[in-house]
């Protein structure tokens, strides 16, 4: 079917989760069918995907409370786990439950009791200057920051009425505390509704809605005053103003929070900590190593995105150095840097970027052996944006058990030999085998089970990097040169930023962002900047 066609710039085949498998026998459609884009878009017409109202994630809630109230107790950690959509925490579909409302209520009540409800610095006015006017002023300013938009007349009227009613019972201070207690439970605070303004066949986001999208994507928190001011000035309604804010925001230390959120979720770093290894086989491994490995990857990614090695995707995938702390030194076989987290050159010809770091190698490994299936699958889904179907129903899935006299590769090769498995698994293990020079904790090895490691691999079913390779360094180089991987990065950032799977309406945006990304020489910051000014970011499709 569509598989035999060649798309050098393959948005067509990749759209909608690329539910398409280029190898016969593994033709399972995952999710939606392929859409052929030829002639679907009207030239010049804007198109953008749908937007669902998102509820703050745990991370966003903690950060927002920090910035709104100055409270650093990270109350989001007490909330229920987030709902992932398209691989990233989105909270866009699952509704709130009674336990969650109880959690929100408890947090709001606790925080409202802690605020300095009569202080000028908090209220923005002196109560002595007049209770009513001061309360109105506070409601207007606090409400705008909490709702991330100016309050409308109804908001102001009802919040003041709530204050006033409570003041009659418990005095001014109690009235202010009740406003705080309410606002933290208001749907306008917990959700990010995007209603936009009608603009031909799409809705154009308001400047405030753009400010929220920018802030939660880049800083994982509420907009700061400057963003809200930019929205007041309507400068976020056009690409120039958005680009200006982008430049400011990516230069800010707060950009670290957004980068950590993206890379942590994209690379599953949260899943690493707490997943142990067999202590008899891997005495060097511990929770401290796992934690250090997750932090290493975030530090590495941040350094690169902020400019190290041209800030490029190629550097992310091929850098022969990293930024490590002491617990990782024995695993990499290097001396720990004097300053924790400083740049360290890795042993020659052993490491190249993200896919040779302990975080990926240890996560995609069992506790007693490597996991070529997981490693191959991770490369395919996360770096190449190809989803894989579930195994057929009649297949018994077992993890092969290590055997004396056989390498992991040999055991896994025998395991997948059944024809029913082979059709899909030839997309997995032949990629994963390329990582056999790294054991289940990511340490470099040339011997496996007293036999020489065979790290020859083969890539099949890709757009542009099919063919044999040897070892992770060569694979990483292939991936860094692949247009498919570049396009996949664009898609991953779009999924993260918008909290949803891309749709056919996003194709023109994806192409636009992809072109900027390519022209920049694969700079991640250029990707993000192009994303922020794209129609997908600033418009929503009408349902």
């Amino acid at each position, binding site marked *: 079917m569509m598989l035999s066609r060649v798309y050098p710039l393959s948005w067509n085949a990749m759209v909608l989760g690329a539910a398409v498998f280029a190898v016969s026998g593994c033709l399972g459609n995952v999710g939606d069918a392929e859409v052929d884009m030829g002639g679907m878009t009207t030239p010049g017409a804007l198109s953008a995907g749908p937007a669902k109202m998102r509820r703050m994630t745990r991370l966003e809630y903690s950060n927002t409370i920090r910035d709104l109230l100055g409270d650093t107790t990270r109350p989001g950690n007490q909330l229920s786990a987030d709902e992932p959509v398209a691989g990233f925490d989105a909270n866009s579909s699952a509704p709130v439950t009674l336990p969650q409302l109880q959690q929100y209520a408890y947090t709001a009540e606790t925080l409202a009791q802690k605020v300095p409800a009569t202080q000028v610095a908090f209220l923005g006015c002196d109560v002595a200057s007049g209770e009513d006017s001061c309360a109105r002023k506070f409601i207007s300013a606090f409400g705008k920051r909490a709702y991330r938009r100016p309050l409308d007349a109804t908001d102001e009227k009802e919040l003041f009425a*709530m204050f006033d009613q409570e003041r009659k019972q418990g005095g001014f201070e109690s009235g202010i505390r009740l406003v705080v207690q*309410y606002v933290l439970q208001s749907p306008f605070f917990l959700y990010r509704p995007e209603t936009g303004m009608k603009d031909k066949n799409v809705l154009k986001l308001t400047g405030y809605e753009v400010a929220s999208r920018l802030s939660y994507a880049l800083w994982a928190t509420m907009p700061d005053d400057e963003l809200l001011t930019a929205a007041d000035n309507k400068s976020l309604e056009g690409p120039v103003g958005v680009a200006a804010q982008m430049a400011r925001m990516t230069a800010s230390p707060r950009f670290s929070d957004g980068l950590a959120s993206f890379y942590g979720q994209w690379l599953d770093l*949260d899943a690493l900590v707490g997943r142990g290894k067999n202590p008899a086989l891997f005495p060097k491994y511990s929770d401290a190593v796992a934690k250090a490995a997750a932090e290493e990857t975030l530090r590495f990614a941040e350094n690169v995105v902020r400019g190290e090695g041209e800030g490029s995707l190629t550097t992310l995938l091929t850098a022969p150095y990293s930024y490590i702390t002491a617990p990782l030194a024995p695993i990499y076989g290097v001396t720990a840097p004097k300053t924790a987290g400083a740049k360290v050159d890795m042993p020659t010809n052993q490491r190249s970027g993200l896919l040779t770091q302990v975080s990926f190698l240890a996560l995609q490994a069992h506790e007693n052996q490597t996991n070529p299936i997981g490693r191959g699958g991770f490369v395919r889904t996360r770096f190449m944006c190809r989803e894989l179907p579930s195994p057929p129903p009649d297949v018994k899935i077992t993890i092969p058990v290590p055997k004396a006299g056989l390498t992991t590769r040999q055991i896994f090769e025998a395991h997948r030999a059944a024809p029913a498995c082979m059709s899909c698994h030839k997309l997995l293990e032949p990629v994963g085998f390329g990582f056999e020079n790294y054991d289940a904790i990511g340490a470099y090895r040339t011997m496996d089970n007293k036999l020489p490691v065979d790290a020859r691999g083969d890539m099949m079913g890709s757009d542009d990097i099919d063919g044999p390779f040897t070892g992770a360094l060569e694979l990483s180089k292939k991936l860094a040169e692949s247009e498919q991987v570049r396009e996949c990065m664009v898609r991953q950032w779009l999924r993260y930023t918008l909290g949803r799977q891309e749709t056919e309406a996003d194709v023109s945006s994806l192409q636009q962002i992809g072109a900027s990304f390519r022209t920049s020489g694969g700079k991640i910051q250029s990707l993000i900047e192009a994303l922020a000014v794209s129609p997908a970011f600033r418009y929503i499709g009408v349902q």
Partner: protein
Amino acid sequence: MITPKFPCSRRSLLQGIGAGVALSPFVPMLEAHAQSQAPRRLVVIWTPNGVATSAASLDRWKPVGGEWDFNVGNPKDVLAPLMEVKDSLVVLDGVTNVLGAKIASHTIPPTLLTGFKLNQTGAKNTWTSTGPSIDQVIAKSLKDMGQTTRFPSLQMGVGAQGADGEHGLARSVVVFTGPGQPIQAENKPSVIFRQLFADFVPPSPTASPPMPGVKPTVDRRKKSVIDQVRGDLARLNSRVGKDDKIKIERHLVSLAELEHSLETGSSGGGVGAQPVKACAKPADPGAPLTDLRPTMTAQMDLLTMALACDQTRIVTLQFLNSFSSMRMPFLSSAGNQSDHHGLSHGGAPSLGIIEAQNWMSGQVAALIKKLKAIPEGSGTMLDNTAVMLISEFGNGHEHDSSYLPVVLAGGSAQWKTGRVLRLNKLPHQNVLLSLAQFMRLNVSTAGDPNYCTGPVPGLV
């Protein structure tokens, strides 16, 4: 429609009447009346990653022996600790999850209590349910029938990790109010205590019951907040698309539940609630507990009192999650070799997962004893409480849910207990139906009606 044939089982009658008393023709009728007054309750306990059972000779879960005369085959088998409360059990040998068997992976938990197929859309295997779980179906029906307690249901966890890693929500949640509408388990006993008991005053035996229709005073600020949320949700609703309207509708339902729990807050279980005499405010378990063992004990104690005080009649308790990376270091030998998921892949037989599940059976046995020690009417609370212990796999090593391990316990007000039922590929929807019928729902199917063929035969 299938109604329970025996609202009051032979066994519960005998228990209620006591040994040696001759049966007069009138006593059973009186007894039946008394029993029908007692509230029915449901406790569902999910333990993940399978129990090392299979068709093979390596089975370490299935009891051996006859229907009324069964035992474990080996003193270290998974169900061994439950043999102490054997008289209260109905072991179901031969249940199958047809929907799960077609998936064969750690994404299947949403099929377990729903009996509906998975919604497999979304990347990164973020699969969810396509229907409500039976506990939520029952909770809604009880509410519709006017049998309201302070909380419609309670979701407890012990080491339940929520969304984590690649499989996201799917492998971690079994309770759903509707398609794609999960309720996650609360792991912290301190939070459960706060929500259920912080402002709870146990009913005094001497005080007169609250007047019907008179609601206790709710904190005016909380009331004010709820009213305003309701108003703002309505305003928001007029501005959003249809997908968001669904979320707002559910937000309103949850809000009403919150309001109801406040209105019935300190006065006991709510309108029509029937706390048993043993109802007492439990101790505050305090700061979060890091060890699984005291956490389990604290949750079981809170669970027991939540039922005794009629705060709710429906509880789910989730232990860990499918694919869990939690360890049980306190187990003696094979069970501390790996994390819980790793134990399930520990070879055949998986001694580690057998030891881990044996420990879990012990926790459930302790709960059964607790419920049995609380008098209610002429019997015990256990008679009116259906307990189900279930895993999403039989043989976890092979991700095989074609054989589902199910143990029912209690419920002798309707069920004939003290047995093992040998069944042949009974759809697990049938078990869900039997739970619904025990809870007096007037229903003849549960889960996906294409699979449900009727209640568990011979149970009542």
